[in-house]
């Protein structure tokens, strides 16, 4: 995945500059800051570090078409024998366009017996959701799913 390379200072400054330009355009709605694919990549890098990120082993079950982004059921499972020698240490879930790139970190171990976690998440927009699993041998595996959201989570809703 070439777009997962650590973002350079130049790219960051470029993004900051374009954000500043957007800020000067008068807008009617007040939009919260949106995570960008670069933030997604750097959030993943924070977890993975310099290790190689493989594709596979991880399965992300999430409806491809979501009516209400406020509560989206999500299940992450990882193909693993879950023995003391070969098990999943942690599962990390990220998104592309919520205000923050992180969704949740889940720490399990060999005693889990089955590497599967379910929860309910919020999605502010149609976007990519990425799940990364760290195995006991230190390798990282990932998968991503594109989700279409018709009613976004209420980050812009006025109380």
């Amino acid at each position, binding site marked *: 995945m070439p777009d997962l390379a650590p973002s350079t200072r130049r790219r960051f400054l470029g993004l900051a500059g374009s954000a500043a330009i957007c800020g000067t355009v008068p807008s009617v709605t007040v939009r919260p800051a949106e995570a960008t694919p670069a933030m997604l990549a750097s959030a993943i890098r924070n977890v993975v570090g310099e290790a190689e990120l493989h594709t596979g082993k991880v399965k992300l079950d999430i409806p491809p078409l979501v009516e209400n982004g406020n509560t989206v059921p999500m299940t992450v499972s990882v193909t693993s024998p879950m023995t003391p020698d070969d098990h999943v240490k942690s599962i990390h879930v990220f998104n592309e366009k919520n205000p923050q790139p992180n969704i*949740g970190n889940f720490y399990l171990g060999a005693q889990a017996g089955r590497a599967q976690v379910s*929860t*309910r998440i919020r999605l502010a927009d149609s976007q990519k959701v990425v799940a990364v699993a760290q195995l006991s041998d230190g390798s990282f595996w990932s998968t991503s799913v594109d989700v279409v959201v018709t009613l976004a989570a209420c980050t812009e809703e006025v109380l």
Partner: protein
Amino acid sequence: MPAALINVPKKAKRGDVVEIKALMSHIMETGYRRTAAGDLVPRDIITSFTCRYNGAEIFRADFFPAIAANPFISFFTVAKESGKKEFEWIGDRGFSETASASITVE
């Protein structure tokens, strides 16, 4: 009012993989919403969830604002011995709740 809902099988055979479900009622205010006056509503979320089985940690999760209100979590564990599962939720503004459930392993 904080209220936890926990689902742990009462009985299991030794070595079985059992599913544990836990739900805590909580607003999970993201900190990105605004009032009509334009002020940000301060963040108020649960940040951490832990499950211990007879004192040993078997599962832990970090939550972010992207976890839906009333956070629900389901995970698995191997039924090794009879005992108590303790659940703990910790969050913003000093939020701290615990709950427990017993399992009999035959």
